[in-house]
């Protein structure tokens, strides 16, 4: 066999295409290892929130977070939009979507932000050491003892939630809502924010029950609510869900696809590298090429010249 440089690429290309076709045909439904069947959830009803920021205060207390720069009772904090950070797992933002009340004043809508505790969390998929895991009760749990500080979770999160203790050079942690894992693991335990909320803007319960509660609220009061439960299907479903009377796009909610974020990356990884078939195929192919061309010695100067 007279293997030329061009010929080599032709064979290699054909083999690669065959490999890709093979990879595409057996497509098992790749699903994250453990999607809990009936996790806990929280339903945030934006029409109920009065923006008192008690949830922020309770979160700070139960998680022993540092004192905020400005008091939780300072209403001027709401004058700018904030994001959860290493010092606050949850924040409440105020929006004026344009509705007017009887006195011609703009009606505010308050939005609480925190980790959504996705059913198929991208952060857990991206985590290379298993520090982030989805627990049976719905929590996306962070284990600081495993974390190596690569911060892939921060890049992966579709809601841009995890924060990092950049101020601590020795023992920095990834900081995000813990869903009060220890508290809700006990009988009758509630997340700090859901417990303190004076208007039950946060309803805590089983995710399936909450979806029914949300649908009932929307059905009973179709004027007050949009027929959309944010988090029911977003990124494959989240444990925290929202209902609102204002379009979510106007309230800072990110428009995310319904496909779980890790689906694509995990599919590529799990199909290409399942049973190491692709490396085996590649090296087998290369070995075969070497085998077929092994008898030929180095090309003579004349042959080289001929081809040119």
């Amino acid at each position: 066999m007279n293997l030329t440089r061009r010929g080599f690429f032709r064979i290699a290309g054909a083999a690669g295409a065959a490999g890709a076709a093979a990879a595409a045909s057996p497509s098992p439904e790749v699903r994250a290892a453990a999607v809990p069947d009936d996790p806990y959830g929280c339903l945030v009803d934006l029409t109920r929130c009065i923006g008192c920021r008690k949830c922020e205060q309770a979160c700070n207390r139960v998680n022993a977070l540092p004192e905020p720069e400005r008091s939780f009772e300072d209403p001027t904090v709401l004058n700018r939009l904030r994001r959860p950070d290493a010092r606050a797992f949850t924040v409440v933002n105020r929006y004026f979507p344009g509705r007017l009340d009887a006195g011609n004043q703009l009606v505010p809508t308050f939005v609480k932000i925190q980790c959504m505790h996705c059913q198929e969390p991208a952060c857990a998929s991206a985590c290379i050491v298993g520090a982030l895991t989805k627990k049976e009760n719905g929590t996306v749990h962070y284990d600081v003892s495993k974390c190596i500080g690569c911060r892939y979770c921060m890049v992966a999160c579709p809601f841009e939630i995890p924060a990092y203790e950049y101020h601590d050079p020795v023992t920095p942690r990834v900081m995000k809502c813990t869903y009060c894992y220890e508290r809700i693991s006990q009988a009758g335990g509630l997340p700090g924010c859901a417990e303190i909320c004076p208007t039950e803007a946060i309803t805590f319960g089983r995710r399936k029950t909450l979806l029914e509660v949300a649908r009932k609220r929307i059905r009973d009061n179709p004027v007050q609510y949009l027929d959309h439960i944010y988090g029911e299907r977003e990124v494959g479903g989240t444990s925290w869900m929202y209902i609102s009377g204002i379009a979510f796009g106007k309230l800072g909610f990110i428009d995310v696809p319904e496909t779980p974020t890790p689906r694509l990356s995990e599919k590529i990884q799990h199909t290409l590298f399942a049973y190491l078939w692709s490396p085996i195929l590649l090296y087998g192919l290369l070995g075969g090429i070497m085998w077929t061309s092994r008898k030929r010695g180095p090309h003579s100067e004349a042959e080289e010249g001929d081809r040119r």
Partner: protein
Amino acid sequence: MKKRIWFLGLVPVLALLCLVVSAGRAAAAAPSGDELALDPAWKAPDQEAARERAREVVPFVDAVVDECQLCRQQRLRDMGLGVKDIVHSYFLLDSPVIKQREDHYGPVRFMHTKHAAQIQDCAVCHHARPADKAAKETVRCSACHQESFRADTPDRLGLKAAYHQQCIACHRDEAKGPMDCAGCHPKNVPDHKELVKLPANPQPWDVTAECLRCHPGAGEDMLASSHWLWRGHSAYTLDHQKKVIHGKGTTAINNF
């Protein structure tokens, strides 16, 4: 002639004295109802009985009659229920149902009769009746609303949320009654008798220093205010809100 002039000078002085006395009497007269409600020192005649009532936890009503708001309103009217049927005119809202979870605020004083007389519609708050035929037509909030997030009644509000949603929505819509947290319930402030440490015969500045020991922010606020700087916005002067900058530090000799 000289004697007569002296007498004329006395007339305005006497008139002024009369004015001062009558004004003092007017101020001493009983305050109006609204002032009573907001006066933190005010105590209802049945304060202790109300405190006892607040401790009661009544059996949970799990099923209520499904009827529309208007139907219920009309039915209660047909029954002739009204202010005259009120058993307890005053409640302290301090239920153990809420306190078992948190205890950050003192009890709310709820004037039942006053609210009923103002609203003239029992069905606004007593919006559902127990399905049990033997039960009373109107029951207290905590009969149907108890712990939050009960698994058997997931769409039922807890007591705290039921209070807040009802009170806040009505106070906002009617533009009456307190709108801030402390307007309804005083915070559970720690007893300052234990906290404040003063010398036996304190000077005024000793007291100020002692206050500032724990409340440094209050001092900083004062130092930034026009009371200290004698210049700045006269924020709450009628018709001059945040428009005129004056004070002893700038344009005025004395603007108090």
